[in-house]
Each structure stands twice: as C-alpha cells, then as structure tokens.
C-alpha cells in the first residue's frame, strides 16, 4: 500500500516535461524510467523531471534515475531536474549527480536552461 507514485507527462516537440507526485522508491523510480524510455523511443532527447510533487525519495529510486542519465549521455541528450526539495537537492549534490544532470530551481528557469527546440 502507501500511494504509489503518479507520473504525468507534458509532451512537446523534441522534449517533454515529466511531473511526479509521491514517493520515488524502487517502484517510483521504475515508473519514471518506463516513461522516460518511452519518450526517448519517441525521439525526444531533452527531458525535464519536475519533482515538485515529490517530497521523499530513496537511494534505490535515485539509482534508477542514474540509469536514465546514463542513457541520456549515450544518446547525447539532456536530462534536467527542477523544483527539488532542499533535501533532495542536497542529496543530489552529495552524490555528485548535479555534475551530470542540470538542476534548476523551477520550471521556467529549466526551460530557459535546457534550450528545448522552439
């Protein structure tokens, strides 16, 4: 039980924003990965993960996000994160994840920073 992660997608030309709501544990991470790989398969190379609705994560969930980053590096794409809680941001910092995926305070700045195709 405990409500599972809800993921919603805003598909745009060439990029997409993925919104999460809930706990990013192993199932939550897998659900995000499933959605992300589908978006990549559809030809998108720029993804923004907006974690505004996520207040807790665990390291199992994050390790699945690292798989997505690896994939993005492979295809020469970009994965950005925005709207993290201070603790999630600090955790990404501790892990050195912020060197391989851009972290933005909010969606507006993320969209400006990731330069999605207009």
């Amino acid at each position, binding site marked *: 039980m405990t409500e599972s992660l809800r993921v919603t997608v805003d598909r745009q030309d060439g990029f997409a924003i993925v919104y999460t709501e809930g706990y990013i544990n192993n199932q939550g991470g897998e659900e995000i990965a499933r959605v992300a790989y589908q978006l990549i398969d559809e030809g998108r190379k720029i993804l923004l993960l907006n974690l505004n609705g996520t207040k*807790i994560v665990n390291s199992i969930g994050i390790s699945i996000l690292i798989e997505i980053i690896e994939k993005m590096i492979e295809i020469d794409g970009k994965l950005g994160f925005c709207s993290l809680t201070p603790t999630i941001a600090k955790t990404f910092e501790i892990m050195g994840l912020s060197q391989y995926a851009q972290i933005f305070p909010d969606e507006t700045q993320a969209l400006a920073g990731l330069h999605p195709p207009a």
Partner: protein
Amino acid sequence: MTGNAVLREVTLTLPMLPDMEVAASKTATAMAEYMQMTPDRIDEVRMAVIEACINAFEHSHAPDRKVYMTFEVLGGGEPELLRISVRDTGIGFAPEEREKPQMVKKLTDKNKRGWGLEIIEGLMDSVEIDSSAGGGTTVVMSKRR
C-alpha cells in the same frame, strides 16, 4: 556547552516490509519537531532514517525481519541533539571495507547502487556503524538542532 543528558527516549520496532521505512521517518519527524529543529533539517533526518531502514530491510537478512530503533533527544536542559539508532540482528558487514561510491564510475557501472551510507553521512552531523559478521548492524546517527 552541549549537555548530554537523555531528555527523551522513544523506541520503535518495525517489520522489514515495504513502506515501513516511511513510518520510521514519521516518528523521527515527530521527535525532531518536538525539538523544534528547522523544517529543512527535519527533512534531512527523515531521508537519513529512510536510508538506514531500507539498508536493514535489504541487506541484513535478519531472521526476525525486524528493525529496532531508538530516538533520543539529548541536551543540557534544552534539547540540543537528536540521536537515532537503527539496529538489526542480521548478517552484518564490514563498514571499513566499503568503497566510496563515485558518480563518474557509477554512470557506466552496471550496479548503480551503493549510495545509502554516503547519503546518511552527508545529511547527518555524525554517523557511527557497529557491524560484524553474524552479529548484526547498528547505525547510530546524530544531528544537532
């Protein structure tokens, strides 16, 4: 001066079952709120507790499938420090042999895991691990108010 009298001690026993780490994190939150820790620091404690619990759930193979936790508020008069202990009766491990995970390696490594203790150490003020083969594991982590 940090007094080290135990002002409050609460114990919690959890089954090693999905989502029970969230219950542990709520008890931690309650104790941290009692101390009037700032919300951001409370959140860091919460995340550290989740990591310590899922480590015990995943790696301990404890036959009783239980995690034993204590939450202690310490201080001289006023609460100053929250000390949380997470104990299992499992197989144990050698913390000193643990390799520090590196993102640059993990990105190409098939095994992307191995971040839990790193995160706990980064979020708490101090962490001690007492573990031995067959003797179970106790992680004691503290954070000042």
